[in-house]
């Protein structure tokens, strides 16, 4: 079974600063994918970034990047130059080749302050 753990229920960062959200996962599969989703107050879930487990290179999307440590089963999200619009719940998720079912962590609430 897949499990995804986010150990930081809430975090705060000042505008323009950098923040890192933690995520660990557990799977016995070799073929799997990891995601970070953002859920702003509007409730709409939006994909932020995706990482394929077979790729060693860390994924990046503009100000968002991941630190994927496969051996440690760690998948943290780094947000650079934080903006007020980054305020949201962030969910880490995984899906494996056989399960084909997204499993989510419990989320981290990020507040970006002036």
């Amino acid at each position: 079974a897949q499990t995804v753990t986010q150990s930081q229920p809430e975090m705060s960062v000042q505008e323009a600063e950098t923040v890192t959200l933690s995520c660990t996962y557990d799977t016995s599969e070799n073929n799997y994918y990891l995601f970070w989703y953002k859920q702003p107050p509007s409730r709409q879930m939006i994909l932020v970034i995706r990482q394929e487990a077979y790729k060693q290179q860390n994924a990046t999307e503009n100000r968002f990047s991941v630190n994927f440590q496969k051996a440690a089963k760690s998948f943290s999200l780094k947000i650079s130059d934080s903006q007020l619009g980054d305020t949201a719940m962030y969910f880490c998720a995984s899906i494996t080749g056989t399960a084909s079912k997204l499993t989510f962590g419990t989320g981290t609430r990020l507040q970006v302050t002036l």
Partner: protein
Amino acid sequence: GAGVSQSPSNKVTEKGKDVELRCDPISGHTALYWYRQSLGQGLEFLIYFQGNSAPDKSGLPSDRFSAERTGGSVSTLTIQRTQQEDSAVYLCASSFQGRSGTEAFFGQGTRLTVV
């Protein structure tokens, strides 16, 4: 449509009544998920449909909950004899063929309040 559509956006119902929540996935998406999200909490998996395969119902919390997907498209989540603990946001998501690594697109959810 352009995205996953859920209706109604909000639903207030009396305890003991039945409710139906609807999800219109993105056209061509064969995988469909239902999740439940309590206020400020994470996502609780309910049910997963993939093409013509038998659905994965392992997340349904009780036999009061059921879901169907007609014609491989629209899905309805039914909650019978609603209880106050059923109050939550119900999120639907769809993805293309449910292939690993394929992004799941979410609707905006239905906020259910049982009074």
